[in-house]
């Protein structure tokens, strides 16, 4: 089944420039409905209050007050949100970070800096080809 490119995607990063980069890349990939949040707390609130469930979350790790890692654990612990595909896009590249994220239920992991092709392939791996 083809991916619905109109599904809402949530980009979580405390750097506006990074949000803008990912927004542009997603736009180029055809995603039309992109929202953003500046940290895990804001993202969690948006996810809980969203009229339409987010079809994908792309989150940074290192943010305050709530990190992307904490957001991931909150999402996976919430019955209503636990099935949301979640990709971590971060400069945290230690093996312990990748292992911890995988254990917490992340669907894929991209280390910064990354390119459009990497983002596309990871999104496809998580939600299917588009």
């Amino acid at each position, binding site marked *: 089944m083809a991916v619905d490119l109109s599904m809402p995607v949530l980009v979580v990063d405390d750097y506006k420039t990074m949000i803008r980069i990912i927004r*542009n890349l997603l736009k180029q990939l055809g995603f039309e409905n992109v929202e953003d949040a500046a940290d895990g707390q804001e993202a969690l609130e948006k996810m809980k209050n969203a009229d339409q469930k987010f079809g994908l979350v792309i989150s940074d*790790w*290192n943010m305050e007050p709530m990190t992307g890692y904490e957001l991931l654990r909150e999402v996976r612990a919430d019955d209503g949100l636990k099935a949301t595909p979640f990709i971590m896009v971060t*400069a*945290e590249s*230690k*093996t312990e*970070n990748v292992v911890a994220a995988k254990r917490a239920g992340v669907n894929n992991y991209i*280390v910064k800096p990354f390119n459009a092709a990497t983002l596309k392939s990871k999104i496809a791996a998580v939600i299917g080809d588009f």
Partner: protein
Amino acid sequence: MGANDAALRVKEAISHLKSQNVKDRQLVDVLELSGVLTDAMGHFFSALDETIKDEFVDIAGFIKKARNEIGDLRPKDIKTNRIPSAGEELEAIVADTEIATDKIMQTAEDVLAMDPDSTEDFGMQIQDKMLVIIEACSFQDLTGQRVSKVVNTLKQIEDRISRFAEVMGVDEDEVEITPEEQRRRDLLLNGPAIGGPETAQDDIDAMFAEGPAGQDDIDALFDGDDAEGEEVSQDDIDALFD
């Protein structure tokens, strides 16, 4: 009154009582015993006084030394000049970088939004936009110089603090972990690695490949300098692939 003086006064009082020609045998025994005790206490307190005195002399010396070393640190200079100056440089770096990034991003977005078929002089406009991007990249020269100034300041502060810690015999193992540091450790907030990612994207991809990852893939993650495996046991890894 010092302990030694007190013992001397007690001894004088006992001698005075003895000189009163006391007849009561028991009282004489008590006086004799008190004399012995007073002598013993006198020696004890005398030694104690010397020990305490030596301790205070040592503490005074240490405080004097610490004061001199703190003076050498020039904390006022660090607080009023060097740290604020470095902070201003870093803020300028963030601002310069943000302005340049915004200009580059905006120009790229303008190019992406242009329709080659309906845009007059499309080729010329693309060239103009590329020049804007190239000009915006000149921020790197300024930020490079600012970073050098901050690095120099940090080195000077590092030198002074290192010397201070060495002279004062600071044992880092005794330093308590702050709540901020504990949070950083708990949430694995390591920040970007120097010289590129510590774990390559290909190695990460191997972990997320369909089906169980091969042992070679797992081993590759923990090989070489990239590995930070001390905190991850084989059980942890096995649990990932159960």
